[in-house]
């Protein structure tokens, strides 16, 4: 019995104030040295499952847990989280939130100090861990100055020094850019393979972890949990990766989990796809490339035109170093780039509320376009210079009627205690008819009750509410800063449909994101930023397939070709427009 790393016996969890159990009669074992991937929709109880494994549920959260959770034979019933600190290490989604000290070295030692290890052991383990995670040069660095990937590695290191036999990771890569995520995942696989640490990881971005996993644990909405081999479980899981979806569509068996497997299975599929290209003439090619080029083939007058945008932050940091950007109607533009490449600063500068140290941002106000529909011809500057306005010089209320921005932590915009009150406030602050915002919200996310507290909404619903609030002002340009963070694939697909719908009605949408698959689904055009400069700007298919780091999985399997998503492949093969 004590040989299982983690074992749950008929575990049910009911959290305080909840109507029904979050987890229902869960029987689950994870063997020593396994990498188990926990998947499930948002709010399905993934975090509760991890919490139960480290005794935070119910010791820290309250609620009722029936059944037994055993970690290497220790029952969480009689062991508080602190009594399990030498067996299980926990790393959360936001590494910075769990830091107790302020330098890397002290943080690595903190857990060992609490366990009362002798000084010489601590010195040795800190050095080992610094080398194991490849962060030796950061030894004295203040934790706040580290990049997201480095912070996450330090967080993992800080629990590793206590030599836990089980490591629980709750969405370790969700806040990271692709490179940072790779660093962290490489570290995790190294721990599993070299040290035989048991790792349980919950992750929305299944495609990042699936091919490393030995076991997949699926948490369903009703609280039931199934576990099995990745290939077996993915056949009917509601959370999948694009490769798995492609495999399901093409009917491959066994289901491929990595790009490599899929590429080997896809020889016939590729031939079919190339065949469709040859059959159709370039003009009526239904492939995805067509949709994605539209914005550039016929720009119908700019909505927003930025020239030489420079953003400096205090401390002589140049966040945006001279960016030229034009935004066109009916176009979804994705802004990509690593953490700290200046994406947020650029969006805030475009909106006019953030710092703009140099350059100009001109926006065509909606009234001008309505009164002179013909003047905004192709190639023109959207009317003469006198027609455009600089959002920066306007009052905040007028500014948001020109350019809307949904910030990174969208919930900052919400401060009233019901959804209905927020909608009402949005109507009155934008001077719209009462009910405008509520209608928009109902359209985007049906089923939100008006007297719900905004805090109780899921991440996707919160985002929809903030979007509705910002859309109430009816801005022709809408900017979204990392909206996909914390969304599960279903919510992401819904957001993608929503943004496409908004673009179809003539708006220009800009989305900053790390999520290549979302970009492949949603955007017409991709702008890549690095060190505050634009390094690539063009149609989605051209930009993201040109570098392996940015390419979506489907394109890696089917390439070279213009197919980015399973929907593209399906459209090409079945002749249905995407």
């Amino acid at each position, binding site marked *: 019995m004590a040989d299982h790393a983690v074992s749950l016996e008929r575990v049910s969890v009911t959290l305080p104030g909840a109507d029904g159990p979050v987890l229902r009669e869960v029987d689950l074992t994870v063997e020593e040295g396994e990498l188990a991937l926990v998947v499930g929709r948002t709010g399905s109880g993934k975090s509760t499952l991890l919490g139960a494994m*480290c005794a935070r549920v119910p010791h820290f959260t309250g609620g009722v847990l029936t059944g037994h959770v055993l970690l290497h034979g220790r029952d969480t019933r009689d062991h508080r989280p*602190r009594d399990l600190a030498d067996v299980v290490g926990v790393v959360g989604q936001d590494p910075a939130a769990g830091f107790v*000290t302020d330098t890397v070295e002290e943080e690595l030692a903190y857990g060992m100090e*609490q366990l009362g290890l002798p000084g010489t052991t601590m*010195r040795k383990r800190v050095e080992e861990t610094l080398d194991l995670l490849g962060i030796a040069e950061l030894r004295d660095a203040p934790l706040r100055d580290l990049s997201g990937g480095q912070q996450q590695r330090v967080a993992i290191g800080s629990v590793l020094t206590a030599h836990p036999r089980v490591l629980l990771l709750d969405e370790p890569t969700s806040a990271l850019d692709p490179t940072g995520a790779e660093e962290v995942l490489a570290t995790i696989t190294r721990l599993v393979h070299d040290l035989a640490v048991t790792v349980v990881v919950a992750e929305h971005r299944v495609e990042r972890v699936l091919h490393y996993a030995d076991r997949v644990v699926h948490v369903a909405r009703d609280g039931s949990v199934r576990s099995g081999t990745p290939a077996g479980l993915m056949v009917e899981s509601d959370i999948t990766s694009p490769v798995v979806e492609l495999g399901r569509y093409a009917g491959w068996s066994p289901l491929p989990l990595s790009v490599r497997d899929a590429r080997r299975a896809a020889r016939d599929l590729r031939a079919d796809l190339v065949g469709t290209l040859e059959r159709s003439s370039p003009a009526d090619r239904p492939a995805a490339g067509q949709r994605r080029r539209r914005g550039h083939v016929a720009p119908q007058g700019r909505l927003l035109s930025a020239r030489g945008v420079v953003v400096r932050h205090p401390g002589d940091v140049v966040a945006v170093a001279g960016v030229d950007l034009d935004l066109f109607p009916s176009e979804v533009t994705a802004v990509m780039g690593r953490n700290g490449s200046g994406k947020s600063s650029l969006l805030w500068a475009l909106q006019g509320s953030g710092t703009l140290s140099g350059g100009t941002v001109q926006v065509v106000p909606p009234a001008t376009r309505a009164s002179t529909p013909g003047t905004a011809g192709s190639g023109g500057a959207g009317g003469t210079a006198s027609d455009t306005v600089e959002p920066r010089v306007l009052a905040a209320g007028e500014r948001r009627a020109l350019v809307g921005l949904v910030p990174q932590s969208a919930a900052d915009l919400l401060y009233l205690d019901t959804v209905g009150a927020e909608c009402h406030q949005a109507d009155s602050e934008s001077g719209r008819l009462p009910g405008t915002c509520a209608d928009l919200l109902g359209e985007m996310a049906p089923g939100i009750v008006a007297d719900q507290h905004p805090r109780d909404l899921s991440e996707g619903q919160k985002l929809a509410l903030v979007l509705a609030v910002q859309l109430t*002002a009816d801005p022709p340009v809408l900017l979204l800063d990392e909206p996909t963070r914390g969304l599960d694939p279903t919510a992401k697909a819904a957001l993608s449909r929503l943004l496409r719908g908004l673009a179809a009605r003539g708006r220009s949408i800009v989305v900053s994101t790390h999520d290549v698959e979302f970009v492949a689904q949603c955007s017409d055009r991709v702008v890549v930023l690095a060190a*505050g400069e634009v390094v690539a700007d063009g149609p989605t298919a051209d930009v993201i397939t040109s570098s392996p780091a940015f390419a979506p999985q489907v394109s890696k399997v089917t390439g070279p070709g213009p197919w980015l998503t399973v929907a593209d492949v399906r459209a090409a093969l079945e002749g249905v427009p995407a």
Partner: protein
Amino acid sequence: MRSTLPRAVHPAAWWGWAIGMAVAVSTTTNPVLLLLALCVVALVVAARRGTSPWARAFRLYLWLGLAIVVARVVLHVLVGLKFGEIVVLRLPEVTLPSWAAGIQVGGTVYLEGLLAAALAGLRLAVMIACIGAANALANPKRLLRALPGALHEIGSAVVVSVSVAPQLAESVQRVLRARQLRGDTTRGLRAVPTVALPVLEDTLERSLLLAAAMDSRGYGRTDHVPGGHRLVTGAVTLGGLLASAVGIYGVLDATTPAAMGTPTLLAGLALSGLGLWLGGRHVPRTTYRPDPWRGAEWLTVGCGVVAAATLVTVSRTTPELLVMPLTPLAVPPLPMAPVVGLLVGALPAYLTPAPPRPAARAAHRGARDRVVVRG
């Protein structure tokens, strides 16, 4: 060689030195000595402070000191009792009823009174600079790490609450910025609810995350303590505290019997120390790379003690050397012993090891937007 390698001097040593300097300063109103002490403190701070944020806070203490001097002078002009012969400024005086004899609103301002007020302000300002120096030189977090085992949980709690303040400021800034996006630019009291709710929510959420993380990393682990043992520890600590309280009362009140004074206080302190030691024995916690207490620490504390002892001795024997002669007004004296005593206080700037300098690794280009994760 080892004694000259760069390392951080024990924070308690800096506090000992700073308190010594402050005691020395408190005995004098001689402007020459006060300014000399200020120079000594500033020199040591400039030579031995680290690169941490609080090390840069020394300047704030200087500004605070300046504000105190100005406030003291302004108060003297407005409501102070004026005295002296050399007239500086003639102001009308408000006649007050006899029961308000200690206050003089307005009235002619004399140079002597003005100087006395300014020097009293300067003395307080220099004492505050001494405390500021201790804050700039000693890492408060490292000081808390040196707490006895029984108190380490309180130490951790203090560290965490200190780190909440900058986070709170960050959240407020973020929410204020976000509010602009809704076209809401109200300032002042009316903006409080719209800012406070998201900020409090954010802070609470972060605190809970941190608490959970600390719990999972073993914070608050204790060995099993037998009941009898716990009772003894409690009794000893409580007895010690009681005896200390009685002792302090005895020391301060001259009418109590002598046995209730210093002896009781010492016994109380000893008992309290014993209680802390007993309580700490069952905390399995250890300290990673504890700050050593070596020659440099003794030297630092010693310099502070010498400065304090010199000035206190001079003030007992020849107090006229330490005060500014006001009636009649004269040039302040420059006594040898106090000057040497204060200069000894500057020795740590040269004789202690230099603080370690971390390599610069700030990016010169690229945004500093921090990763904020919610939900």
